[in-house]
């Protein structure tokens, strides 16, 4: 059955079992994708998914249970499991459900006709052919893909809240592998949004250009040098340490920013913003995972930490208002705290100007192993990196197989200039990260 029917089944089951305070959270979607290899569609997929999370109050505690099996029989089992889980809960988490009748900011969202599967197939094949024609260095092992679909989130609770939001998305991707005869390197480029406006030319040119630029890379010298991070690299670093800005982590003693609201935590040129309606967000939901209205806010303004991010739970504990940042990492996960689209507000400098200011240093446009080489609690990081040397104020030879190491909280204070060029670096759905290029002092490169 669909979510609407399953909702009715849960309402009936809750009534039968004497549960009066509860909330259902649904997320799901449909997705069609085609990927091409050697002039053929090697893989075509169509997926339908969706799951429901029930939160309910039982024995004075909040219990969770989730399922993908939306059937009449499962509705009662879901309520029973949530009740049983509530009995074991020990945290002093109060049950707070948002009442109905909230006012949400109205924003225009992308509305376009989803492409037919045959159009996805054609597009993936076309990009494949464009890659082949783009440059003699592109190997036959290069891949391309096109996909489109819809995603929906919905929240229903016993206090009259009943909201839902659906977004359409499409994307194309080029993944060239290039060679100079001795070495093989790869890159990829994605474009997202309204399918009819996706720029094939751009993803092909940019991905091939990026891949070719990596050929013949050396290893930089070990030492402390100025670093310019590209939007992609800085966005990935922001994503890794974003939990520091969560009041939940702060309250659990897992954030170095606990108790620092009102203090200077970054250089004066740094303003960090969270915007649910960021122009390139693939899922600009007007409410958070508890149903509170979503809105734009500055987290850091000119270096000063204005606020952490809160949900109802953590706000109640801190004796303040929620910032509307309740979030779930998947439909089944516990309500936590996350930004919508978090980004460093662009500054006034072009990337060329940042390179000139750096003089001699390293330009980093790839950081890897963030799940392992970075510790969001201590802020320490040591990350595999790739990029270019900066010599005489310009990008020169490619470099790879080195690390950049430092501490995130030191990095925020070590930003000496912010670029004007913002890009969405990590597109994950509701939660995303964007950044301009930034110039940072005080980090160490380990190479040769």
């Amino acid at each position, binding site marked *: 059955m669909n979510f609407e029917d399953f909702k009715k089944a849960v309402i009936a089951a809750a009534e039968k079992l004497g549960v009066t305070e509860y909330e259902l959270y649904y997320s799901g979607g449909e997705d069609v994708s085609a990927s091409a290899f050697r002039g*053929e569609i090697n893989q075509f997929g169509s997926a339908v998914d969706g799951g429901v999370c029930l939160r309910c109050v039982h024995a004075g505690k909040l219990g969770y249970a989730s399922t993908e099996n939306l059937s009449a029989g499962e509705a009662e089992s879901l309520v029973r499991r949530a009740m049983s889980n509530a*009995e074991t809960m020990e945290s002093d988490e109060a049950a707070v459900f948002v009442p109905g009748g909230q006012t949400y900011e109205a924003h225009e969202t992308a509305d376009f006709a989803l492409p037919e599967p045959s159009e996805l197939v054609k597009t993936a094949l076309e990009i494949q052919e464009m890659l082949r024609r783009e440059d003699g260095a592109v190997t036959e092992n290069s891949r391309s893909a096109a996909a489109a679909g819809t995603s929906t989130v919905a929240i229903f609770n016993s206090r009259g809240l009943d909201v839902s939001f659906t977004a359409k998305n499409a994307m194309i991707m080029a993944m060239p592998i290039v060679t100079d005869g001795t070495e093989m390197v790869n890159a990829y480029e994605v474009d997202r949004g309204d399918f009819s406006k996706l720029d094939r030319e751009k993803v092909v040119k940019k991905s091939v250009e990026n891949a070719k630029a990596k050929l013949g890379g050396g*290893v930089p010298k070990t030492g402390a040098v100025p670093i310019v991070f590209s939007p992609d690299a800085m966005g990935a670093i922001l994503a890794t340490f974003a939990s520091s800005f969560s009041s939940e982590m702060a309250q*659990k003693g897992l954030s170095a920013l606990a108790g620092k609201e009102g203090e200077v935590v970054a250089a004066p040129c740094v303003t960090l913003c969270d915007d649910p309606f960021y122009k390139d967000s693939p899922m600009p939901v007007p409410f958070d995972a508890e149903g509170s209205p979503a809105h734009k806010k500055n987290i850091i303004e000119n270096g000063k930490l204005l606020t952490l991010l809160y949900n109802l739970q953590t706000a109640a504990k801190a004796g303040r208002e929620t910032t509307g940042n309740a979030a779930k990492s998947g439909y089944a996960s516990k309500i936590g705290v996350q930004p919508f689209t978090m980004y460093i507000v662009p500054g006034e400098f072009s990337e060329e100007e940042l390179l000139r200011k750096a003089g001699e240093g390293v330009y980093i446009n790839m950081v890897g192993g963030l799940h392992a080489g970075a510790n969001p609690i201590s802020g*320490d990081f040591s990350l595999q990196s790739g990029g270019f040397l900066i010599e005489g104020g310009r990008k020169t030879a490619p470099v790879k*197989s080195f*690390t950049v190491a430092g501490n995130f909280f030191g990095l925020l204070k070590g930003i000496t200039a912010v670029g004007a060029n913002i890009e969405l670096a990590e597109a994950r759905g509701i939660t995303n990260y964007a950044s301009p290029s930034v110039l940072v002092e005080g980090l160490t490169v380990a190479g040769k």
Partner: protein
Amino acid sequence: MIPVEVCRRVLAKAVSTGADYAEIFAENTLNHSIEMVGGKVDAINDNVIAGAGIRVYKGLRSVSATTVDTTEAGLLRCAAAAASALGEGKAEIEIVLNERLFGDIHPVRVVPSGVENRTKADILRSACCAAMEYSDKVRQVTGTFLDVDHNILIASTDGIYAQDRQIRTRLMVNAVAEINGETQTGACRPGRRMGLEMFDFIDPVKVGVHAARQAVTMAGAGYCPAGVMPVAIENGFGGVIFHEACGHSLEASSVAYGASQFAGKLGQTIANPKVTAIDDGTIPGAWGSINIDDEGTPAQRKVLIEKGVLKTYMIDKFNGRRMGMASTGSSRRQSYAFTPTSRMTNTYIAAGEDRNEDIIASIEYGLYAKEMGGGSVNPVTGEFNFAVNEGYMIRNGRICEPVRGASLVGKGSDVIQKIDMVGTDMDMGQGMCGSSSGSIPTNVGQPLIRVSSITVGGR
């Protein structure tokens, strides 16, 4: 789950447009976890994953479709969608299904989904409390008790109709310690393809103490210096070096597409002669073990590299077609919602003959990586990274002060040539490996090894 008769009709629909192979993968999984913060149960996650994925192949083309509706009508709709995406041909194969019973080489004595929350919370509590009580430097402890009851059914036009029940249990403790304003973390995360009998030989108190000891040691440590140096990597999770530097590049998902540093190198010497590496999905009760893979092929033990020579890749049926090679029982997927591909199971460098004390004594100035964190790799270039969670400097052949914040980077094809000493005491560590077919449990392992020179990312 789904009767054989229904599977036959659904497969017939799936091949109705000319596919030469079709497969149904259906699952019903209960994921359960209890999280503890500061000694209190903070969250209980309890999730039923249920659905089916249908795949059809024709030559080197494949179509996959997934559905959450596993009634016969729902499956037939899903099969029809896959068939119509494949093309316009007509049915060319006949469906004959035989039930296969592969037996269970990983018997479970105490099924976790039948154990009440309190019992699991008590195990978790004893681990978390042990961590908290280890030292007054420990500032916070979080822990998770995780159990998974993963029931799968595979029916394919190869004639396979098989089911497997994959149960696993894991205890994870993270400790945060603070010394003079410096905060560091420590972790311990043992897991088995077992039920609660896992705790007959894994003491939760030791798990907690391990995490706390590491956090306190690291909070008192200085930064690791940067540079190129010899590194001794300890057994257990240290095996992540092979997993990242080499393992991923031996998966058919990269090799079949020529997107691997090791494509076309079968029979060649790719590693130091000291290196013999094995992927073994049949180790009873091990975290990465399976009875059958997600295409219904029984688990195998494969020698990937023997004394430096590349012997085989890890292969699934679909990518095997492109390579002209048979499946090695390596097809895995996180759930029905992912398209399966070749993945690792329990992958390790086999024990060698060097004594541990000789390995340490051989290093004049270098790093002893006692415990590794996770890592990642680009299989095309072989460039990898991984984190050192607990490291110590080695000077004049002796282990000295602890150092923090180190990571190791390099190129896989280069680093496996440089593994020039291999110890005798192989042990394995548990991880979740993420790739295109999702997040799956895998073991990594090795004895103590020496890498003669590698880039250490420090400050």
